[in-house]
C-alpha cells in the first residue's frame, strides 16, 4: 500500500463513521502489523497511533466514563447516531491511546449488534495480547468490555 494513501485512509477511518465492516478493518490492521519485524516496531507504531488520536473533550473526562482496572487513567465516551455507535477516548498513557485508536478504528461507527458480536481476533493476530492482555496493568480487556457494554446499552435503548 502506498504510504500516503494508507495514512489518509486511517485518518479517514478514525474521524468519520466506518464504512467497512469489522472483519475487513481487522484484516487491514493485521496487514499493517505484518510489516513490522519485532515488538519494538509494533510498540512504536502503537505509540504513533496514540499520539495522533484526537483528544477527548475535557467535559467527557468524568468518573463514570473512567475505565476501572487499568494502571493508567482511561476515559471512554460513546454516542449513537443513525443506529451506529461512535467512540471517543483518552488516556494519560500514549500506548493505551494507541490501543484505543486500534479499537476505535475497528469498532467506532459500527452497528451495536456487530460490536457486541465482535471477537477482535486481530488483537491476537498482531501479537498484542501477549504483551498486554495478561497483565492487569494494561486495561485492554476492560476497554473492550466497556465498549461492548456501551453497545449493549445503546442497543437496548434504541429498541
Amino acid at each position, binding site marked *: 500500500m502506498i504510504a500516503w494513501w494508507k495514512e489518509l485512509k486511517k485518518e479517514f477511518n478514525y474521524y468519520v463513521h466506518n464504512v467497512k465492516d469489522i472483519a475487513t478493518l481487522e484484516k487491514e490492521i493485521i496487514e499493517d502489523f505484518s510489516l513490522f519485524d519485532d515488538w519494538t516496531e509494533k510498540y512504536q507504531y502503537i505509540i504513533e497511533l496514540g499520539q495522533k488520536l484526537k483528544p477527548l473533550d475535557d467535559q467527557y473526562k468524568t468518573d463514570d466514563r473512567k475505565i476501572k482496572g487499568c494502571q493508567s487513567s482511561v476515559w471512554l465516551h460513546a454516542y449513537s447516531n443513525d443506529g451506529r455507535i461512535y467512540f471517543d477516548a483518552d488516556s494519560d498513557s500514549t500506548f493505551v491511546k494507541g490501543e484505543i485508536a486500534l479499537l476505535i478504528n475497528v469498532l467506532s461507527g459500527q452497528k451495536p449488534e456487530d460490536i457486541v458480536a465482535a471477537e477482535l481476533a486481530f488483537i491476537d493476530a498482531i501479537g498484542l495480547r501477549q504483551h498486554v492482555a495478561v*497483565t*492487569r496493568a494494561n486495561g485492554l480487556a476492560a476497554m473492550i468490555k466497556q465498549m461492548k457494554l456501551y453497545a449493549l446499552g445503546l442497543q437496548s435503548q434504541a429498541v
Partner: protein
Amino acid sequence: MLPEMTEINLQPFDVEKVRSDFPVLAQHVYGKPLVYLDNAATSQKPQVVIDALADYYTTYNANIHRGVHFLSQKASQAFDDVRVKVKEFIVASSEREIVFVRGTTEAINLIASSWGRVNLAAGDIVLVTTMEHHSNIVPWQMICAERGAEVVPIPMDDCGVLDMQAFGTLLTDRVKFVSVVHTSNSLGTINPVKQIIEQAHARNIPVLVDAAQTVAHQAVDVQELDCDFLVFSGHKMLAPTGVGVLYGKEKHLEAMPPYQGGGEMISSVSFSGTTYNEIPFKFEAGTPNIADVISLGVAIDYLNAMDRKAAAAWELTLMKLTSEKLSALEHVRLIGTAKEKSAVVSFIVDGVNAMDLGMFLDTLGIAVRTGHHCTEPVMHRLGIPGTVRASFMFYNTAAEVDRLVEGVKKGIQLLRA
C-alpha cells in the same frame, strides 16, 4: 484365591512405563529398592512437573500481574493459564471460581473464617463427619468457638461407612453448613457426597467437599456434584508442595469478605478507605506461589494425558490385592472396609504396635505411614490407637504389594516374639 488374583492382575495398565516418569521411585533406601506406599500423605512427582519448576526459574521467573516486562508477561500468562486448566479439571463454570491457596488446610480455614464469621451465629451447627481429617475439624472448631456455634460429627459404623440415616436426623434447622470429606485418608471410604449435597440443599445449607484424597484418583465434576465449595492440595496430585485449590460458587465468593489483605487482592488503597479486587483475586493476597501454581498446571496436563480410567482401575486392583493378601495373614485386621473405597489399606496387627511395624517396614525400604493419620476421632471411634496405612498411586506395582505383605509377615514374626 489365585484365579481371582490372576484376573485382577490382567488390568491393561503399563505401570512400568508410568513409573519411569517418576524419578524418585528409582531410589534405593538402605540398599533396597524403595517401595513408596505413602501416597495419601503426598504423591511423588513426574519429571515434567519437576522440569517445569526448573524451567520457570531458569527462563522466566518474575512477579506477575503488574509487570509490563517480558518475563512478567510470560509468567503472568503461564499463571493465568493454570486457572483455566483447574477450572476445566474440576468442570467449574468459570475461572472466577478458582482460588489458589497453599493447600486443603488453608482452603478450609479461608472458608471457615470468611464464610463463617458472617454466617454463623450462637447456637448454629456445622456438620462434619467422624472421619474428617483434622484440617476439616479444627478450623470449624475455631470459628464456632468464636461465634458460639458447634461442630457436630455425623457418625460412622465399624466398617467406616457413614451413617446416612443419622445424617438425616442431624440435619436440623440449626445446621448452617455441612463440610465433608469425599475420600477418607485413613480408611479409604468414599462418601456419598452427592446425596449429602442434595439433602443439605433441600434445606438451603451449603456444602464443602474436602477432595484432598479424591482428585488424583477419580474424576470430579463440581457442577454435577453441585457442591458449594471443593478443596484440594496440589502435593497429593503430582504437583509440588505449597499449592492448593479452593473452588467456590461465584455467588458465595462474591458475598464473602476477604480473608487475607495485601498486594494483589485490592483494587485501591488509601488510609480513608480501601476497595477490594474482584474474585478470585480478592482472596489471593500477596505474591502467590507462582512457580508451584504453574507446575500444578503441568501435573493436571500429565493426569489428563493418561488413561485415567485404566489408572484408577489399576489402583483399585492393587488395593484389592493388598487387602486380600494382608487379611489372609494371622493377627492382621483391616481397618476401613467400606464397599466404596479408594486405594488405601489401613490395618492393625494384634499385639504389634503400629509404629514398630512401620519402622520395621522402613528397614526393608518400604514406606508406609503409621498412627492416627490426622484423624484422631476415627481412631477414637474404633477404639484403636492408630493403624499402619499403605496408600497407592497408579505407579505402584503388584510386586510392591508382595514386598509389603512379605515385610508385614516378617515384622509380625519379629515383633510378636
